[in-house]
């Protein structure tokens, strides 16, 4: 009997040790900022994981940005604490012009978080890919599209090359995110209003009867490419 009392005490103490106090924790960020990069209401498609955006929150003594990248379809999101932020895209990033502040630095947007917020941002891309259509025949994917030059003033840039990428998954970009690509140089794009290009589909293991395709334009003097929307193509 004496023994079992001791065990009882030990069991109670053991259980008590699993309790913790809640006071030293605070809630995780819960306000979701979402948005899209738009040009006249149309989503600006960019390279996967290459176009960064930065959020700054002031008043905590720390400097440094909350950095993330824009999705390949131009969407972005960040989970934040409620408060006041500034949103910007760092200098020379993205296939578009970002407004400059009077000081010459990148302009920024004030964002007040109080619960979830949806924030679309208008940007000025150098080019847009219009009416992109993809078709597949004889193990080839063909893309037809037109290229519209958006910025025509002193900031205008030229096309360096145009690529048609295909991938097994819906992430389609340069680098790891394609299984094949074909390329046209600027000289080979004779009529920007009607461009057509073809890429051979390599053997895919395990086999699948579809690929995802999109077109990207590399702009001379700009690091990031601008893309068309991703489309699933049945082979």
């Amino acid at each position, binding site marked *: 009997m004496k023994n079992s009392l001791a065990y009882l005490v030990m069991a109670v103490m053991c259980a008590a040790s699993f309790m913790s106090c809640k006071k030293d924790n605070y809630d995780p960020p819960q306000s979701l900022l979402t948005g899209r990069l738009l040009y006249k209401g149309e989503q600006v498609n960019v390279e996967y994981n290459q176009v960064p955006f*930065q959020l700054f929150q002031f008043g905590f003594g720390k400097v440094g940005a909350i*950095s993330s990248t824009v999705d390949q379809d131009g969407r972005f999101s960040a989970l934040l604490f409620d408060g006041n932020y500034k949103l910007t895209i760092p*200098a020379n*990033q993205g296939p578009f012009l970002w407004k400059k502040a009077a000081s*010459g630095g990148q302009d920024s947007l004030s964002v007040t978080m109080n619960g979830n917020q949806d924030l679309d941002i208008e940007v000025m891309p150098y080019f847009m890919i219009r009416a992109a259509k993809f078709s597949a025949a004889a193990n080839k994917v063909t893309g037809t599209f037109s290229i519209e030059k958006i910025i025509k003033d002193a900031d205008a840039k030229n096309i360096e090359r145009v690529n048609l990428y295909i991938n097994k998954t819906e992430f389609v970009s*340069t680098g*790891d995110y394609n299984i094949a690509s074909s*390329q046209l140089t600027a000289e080979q794009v004779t009529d920007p209003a009607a461009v057509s290009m073809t890429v051979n589909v390599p053997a895919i293991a395990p086999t699948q009867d579809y690929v995802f395709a999109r077109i990207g334009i590399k702009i001379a*003097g700009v*690091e990031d490419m601008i893309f068309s929307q991703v489309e699933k193509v049945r082979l």
Partner: protein
Amino acid sequence: MKKIFQITLFMFLAGASGCNDDKFLNTEPLSDLTTEEVFSSSPQVFSILANLYNRQPDFSSVKSWMSMADFSESFISDNGGDQVAVLRRNSWNYDAWNNWDYAYIRDINLFLERAESATVLSEADKKRFLAEARFLRANYYFELVKRMGGVPIITKALVYDNSGNTEALQFPRAKEHEVYDFVISEAEAIKNLLPTDANQKGRATKAAALAMEARAALYAASIAKYGSNTPLVNLPGGEVGIPATMASGYYTKALAAAKEIISGTAGAYALYNKKPNDLQDNFASIFYDKGNNPESIWIEDFQLKTVKVHGFSVSNQPRFGAEEEEGGRINPSLNLVQAFEKLDNTFAPIPVKDGSGNPIYYAKQADAFAGRDARLGGTVILPGTAFKLRPVDIWAGYQLPNGSILSGDDRGSQRPLPDGSTAQVVGFDGPIVGKEHTAQTGFYIRKYLDPAIGSGSRGTQSEIPFIRYRYAEVLLNAAEASFELGKTADAAEYMNRVRTRAGLIIPLTAGDITFDRIVHERRVELAFEGHLLYDMKRWRLAHQIWDGERLAESELLSNIGKANKKSTQPYSLLPYKIYNPGQPNHNQWIYKVALSNLVTGANRFRLGNYYSFINDDIRSRNPKIVRQPNQD
């Protein structure tokens, strides 16, 4: 009882008294030397200087084969994670190649101050030691500016005053051109304090200072000139980027410094030409001949039977018959091999197919590479050639009459042939995909391989030096500076000297010298010597040739010799033996261009890679350091 207590207390008090002798309390340490002691004799000062020499960093060095193996100039025959990652990687991290060793600079500055105030050194010793330390400091700043752009120039040892405020120790980055100016002015200031002696290789000489000056001025000039190709690579404060107007001034300085070496006033340097009857071996000998080598200007030296040896030959010797069960790490790519031009000064791929697309049959393996720049055979071990008198055994398999391939999965595998007999079907040196140590591109590296017996064994290793500055590069610097200053005839003359040594005896004329030629000549002459990245950076070509797009075979084989030719993936050239008994091509050789399926990445040099990332801890300690551009 009382007495005993008193006596004890008295004795205790007596024992508690100490002697007040300084000598007793302040014992000199027996294992350390004080600063005054060290700077009291010349050999001891020299030993500190040796430590400073030993800490000079190199971009690529024989001490680490990995440091030579990147940029699609070679394939890495290694199954370890880091190494294979190079082949799968798509882009370099922003912190790749960064360097920030201000502890080293501080040690040099301390050395300069202490040697300056040392009283017992002879004037001649002191003068030379101080000049050498300044040379090392300038050369390290040159290394820093190549990687990081403008950095703070600290020329005295900084002292912390324990005030809790470190602001006095925080210096902003200098402008990029100011660092180059510092290197150039230091070289000018010390060149006449250093000895003029072409046989002095390991220590700084007048020629070493001038070679550094010529290269630094050339780098600054080309950044000024070609910076317009990448307007985004720039900082408003000038920490990155050099104004275009400064280009011709720097080219003039580069040419003057190079000419001072070429004219012979800095010592009797010349192109190495001791083996005129075998130009390939002659070229390879530049890197292993330690006896009165007139070509090397400043080297990192090594010596057998000391701790200062290196295992480059251990890691890279041909695997078949190697002195250890390893070797063959660096496999030069076809991209590099085909860049070596033909003896008629034209560029062409290695001929593998005739005009109608049929394979070309070679009686001997080495025939495919005949009639080319001798530097090819001096830089690369080709199939059908030999190392240490032992032929390499590089072939990927048999091609059977029906076109199928018969090969094995291990070095020297044996398989039944169609006629029923069993025979070796793949070389003892490979190439076998994924089999490390074999020549997976079909080639091994030859540059820096030591032909001495024992160089490939771990217990002996090698003592051949790593050449930091050599005469051929000085000539190429002079050629480039002359070309950019419009003196194309001079440029042709300098370049032809280097090319004649390589067997390219048809001289280039002034009209032949183009920017493409300049870029090409440096790539083939200085392959694996740590120049490629810095050259491509200063010409602002890096983001074009490593653009992250896969390299198609047709792209690989076209536009050879063009400055901006893409080279994002290392290709292979695999030799196959023809099995076709009774036919004339039986046992002859064909070659196939291939891309190893281990190469899944395509190198992409982002604009943020032009200047390496300055680590966050450095910038948080010193808020005056501005960030590099394009690294967000």
